[in-house]
């Protein structure tokens, strides 16, 4: 089976709708098929991977810890749009430090998040075979 480049685009806040959680579950299932997977976080989607989320007040499961498992699933191309962070007063420090372990490099931890400009994001998106938009 030929490998295709799959891009999962996340644009919505983590809670309030089910898009973020559904996208995450689809990504984890897709990972089993060993395709070339990337994730993009744009607009309010950047809130999905912010640190120290708390769902205490809204009675929903806080699934943010699951993003940290993506590295175990060999998903290590996570693109975050800089303009979206800027518009919301966020910086890289507000995001969870998502990493993956390189088995071929003595399990060295390497960062998965890449902050890119809107222009770079457009190029990343254009280079994919398949897009899923959540």
């Amino acid at each position, binding site marked *: 089976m030929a490998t295709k480049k799959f891009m999962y685009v996340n644009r919505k806040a983590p809670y309030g709708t089910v898009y973020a959680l559904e996208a995450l579950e689809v990504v984890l299932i897709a990972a*089993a098929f060993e395709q070339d997977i990337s994730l993009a976080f744009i607009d309010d989607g950047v809130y999905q991977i912010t640190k120290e989320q708390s769902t205490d007040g809204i009675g929903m499961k806080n699934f943010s*810890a699951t993003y940290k*498992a993506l590295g175990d699933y060999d998903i290590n191309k996570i693109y975050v749009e800089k303009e979206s962070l800027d518009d919301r007063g966020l910086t890289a420090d507000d995001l969870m430090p998502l990493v993956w372990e390189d088995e071929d490099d003595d399990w060295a931890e390497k960062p998965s998040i890449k902050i890119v400009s809107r222009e770079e994001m457009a190029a990343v998106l254009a280079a994919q075979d398949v897009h899923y938009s959540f």
Partner: protein
Amino acid sequence: MGMLDVNGTSVEVDEEGYLEDLSEWTEEIATAMAAAEDVDLSEEHWDIINFLREYYEEYQIAPAVRVLTKAVGKRLGKAKGNSKYLYSLFPYGPGKQACKYAGLPKPTGCV
């Protein structure tokens, strides 16, 4: 929905035998689930069960078999980080069977 008898008390399990309320889990429940499938839990089984519980605690998901295999290889050595070893412990599938004993939901991506 069914009930599993554990030393006189019963716990709720779903139609496939997975624990309904993850917080109810005890080692006795794991032992009883295994006994119902004629499995006697050894130290090697517990290594995997405990790993799964820690993984769930940290990431809020049951890992896919591929992820479990890789992680076991890292923690317990390459000799154990392969599906042959894991299947020798859990012949019904390391994901499904071990997760069940560990009180976790069925692994995501396990269709």
